[in-house]
């Protein structure tokens, strides 16, 4: 976005997991964006980006869903989602889906350039790291593979978290190792996935943090689900939930 004027208006892209299981993350995302000074819209005809279809190989179905997505968000100045994997889907995998279809390919590429993961949008597009957030406690950041490796977003969330008052960030072992979710992988190989998630949960617990924070809802579903079911007291939170909370606001 260098040299360009930062977008004034953004369209919220709410992934399916957030729509149904973590709606509070969507609300927090909207609040953070408004606080960052942009106008937030929510295109109501949005559904699902087609990531699951794409990753299980059903490209024909994924293409239908991608076309719907491109129609719904095509006129947006910028699209922002609280999920690295969904942004990766739009930015990178849509290009694969439309590699043999020049006109849709160019629409996909154009929108891909205007679609952002929340933390990269705040830091890279708006140049904002200070949001006046407060969150007392000790946190550990989980690098979701789709955020860190696919999008290359590693520093942005850390910069934002370092400015949160009261929040102390700690490190964990095997920081960049996958949590074992992998979408369809965890359904095809549930026992293997569960062991990998157990390793990640153990690293989180060992770090001594009270919160494990991520920018990817699917990792939160996985790690958080494990921590909760196995009776650990560490809570899994989306980074938007932390950034949205300001000093003096009630907790609920």
């Amino acid at each position, binding site marked *: 976005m260098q040299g360009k004027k930062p977008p004034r208006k953004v369209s919220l892209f709410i992934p399916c997991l*957030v729509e149904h299981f973590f709606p509070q993350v969507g609300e927090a995302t909207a609040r953070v964006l408004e606080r960052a000074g942009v106008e937030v819209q929510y295109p109501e005809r949005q559904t699902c980006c087609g990531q*699951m279809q794409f990753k*299980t190989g059903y490209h*024909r179905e994924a293409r239908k869903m991608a076309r719907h997505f491109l129609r719904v968000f095509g006129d947006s100045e910028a699209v922002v989602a609280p999920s690295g994997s969904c942004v990766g889907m739009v930015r990178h995998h849509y290009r694969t889906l439309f590699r043999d279809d020049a006109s849709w390919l160019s629409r996909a590429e154009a929108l891909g350039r205007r679609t952002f993961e929340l933390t990269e949008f705040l830091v890279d597009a708006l140049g904002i790291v200070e949001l006046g957030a407060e969150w007392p406690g000790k946190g550990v950041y989980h690098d979701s593979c789709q955020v860190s490796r696919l999008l290359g977003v590693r520093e942005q969330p850390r910069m934002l978290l370092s400015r949160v008052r009261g929040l102390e960030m700690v490190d964990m072992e095997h920081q960049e*190792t996958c949590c074992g979710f992998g979408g369809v992988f965890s359904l095809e*190989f549930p026992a293997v996935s569960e062991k990998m998630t157990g390793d990640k949960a153990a690293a989180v617990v060992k770090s001594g943090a009270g919160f494990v924070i991520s920018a990817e809802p699917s990792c939160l579903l996985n790690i958080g689900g494990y921590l909760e079911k196995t009776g650990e007291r560490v809570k899994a939170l989306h980074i938007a939930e932390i950034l949205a909370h300001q000093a003096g606001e009630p907790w609920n």
Partner: protein
Amino acid sequence: MELRVEEIKKTAVEAALNEVLHQTLSSAGDRFVALREAGFSQLEDPDGLRARGRQVKDRCLANLPKLLRLLERRVTDAGGVVHWARDASDARALILGLADQYGVKTVVKGKSMMTEEIGLNRALAAKGIEVWETDLGEFIVQLADELPSHIIAPAIHKNKEEVARLFCEKLGVPYTENPEELTMVARRVLREKFLGADMGITGGNMAVAETGTLALFENEGNIRMATSLPRVHVALIGIEKVVESWDDFGVLLTLLARSAAGQKMPTYLSLITGPKKPEERDGPEAFHLILLDNGRSRVLADPVLRDSLFCLRCGACLNVCPVYKRIGGHSYGWVYSGPIGILLNSELLPPGSARDLSYACTLCGACAEVCPVMIDHPTMILDLRRRLAEDPVWKGRLVLSKVLPMKIYAWISVRPFFFRFAGSMAMALQRLVAPSGEWKWLPEALARWGARRKIPRFKKPFSRRWKELKTGSRKRKSSG
């Protein structure tokens, strides 16, 4: 080699439950990762070198027929014999024919994944020929009657206690867990075999076309002996191993040695151009080079999968793979394992025969990050999944329970009204089967998923909350 790719779901679960295996693979994997990082950190421009390695492989593969013919000419000029093998049975027949021709009774082998590809040991044994693996790790798995589980560390799945018991039982030596003593035992046994063998069989890391030279990398010295002590040396390589020049060789040498074990050079580097010359004192009387296709030209012709022929067999992608470290190399069911194993096993076996393999991956991308020739494993694994779902050559029997949910979800997703309606239905259903928060009934796959993970509950969807917020029917709250 025995084919078990269809059993991956079973073998992977068994392996995943084996905590000793996980400890062994994790600590060995971490050691390799640290070595690699140290090796690459000394380079001025590691990614620049990786890009050059990629260019070298790309160019050599683009000129493959020409380079192979040049290699054949140069090897022949140097007094060697070149053979062409279309598939595994061709290659086996060639080697058995050579063994017969030279009256071979005992074979010593250097570590070679290619000989695993053609199931050579079993074929030789069936002809009454004694075969000895001379790489320490290969020797261990041979004694255990197993197969290698890692490209460069074949016995990585065994800890020293297991090796100690194995040596004690199979070689009748006193029990010791001391690695040096165990190594000395292997050395004593193998030294005799080297001296008595009639034929040495090896693979090869590269073949340099401009001089007809076979390059072998190792750290134990066993390959040096296997290629110089017996009367005959037979080398079996895949056709993709040929490079044009010594400049190409230099680039790939640096990448391979550093990527495999953080070394500037392997401890032993054998460069073999033909058999012993009249003026030379050591070396075999005959040198045979077998160039094996075994599915590679099919891969070469495939614009997406072609990149997997860039692989230098360094093993770096295995060492960082979180799935490999849980399920081990044997789970992958054929010669290769880890991320590159998903690709190679799926590609070299008949299309569609390794169905579940491409799902043994979380798409985390750690492999692509370390690959010395920048193979993009996740992108290619995704393409394998596409073939298995859509490509008439690859896709097999239609599994409705897999296809239908994808089709239905896609149908709903392009109809926003139905999408919201389906969400409401799911919530209503949840009230029936999970009234108090715990799900009373779930499809089997989800129930298994949730054995140690809490299955999430549907909440009032964001889309409705947004509407309420905007129309003011719900007072804005500060936190969800």
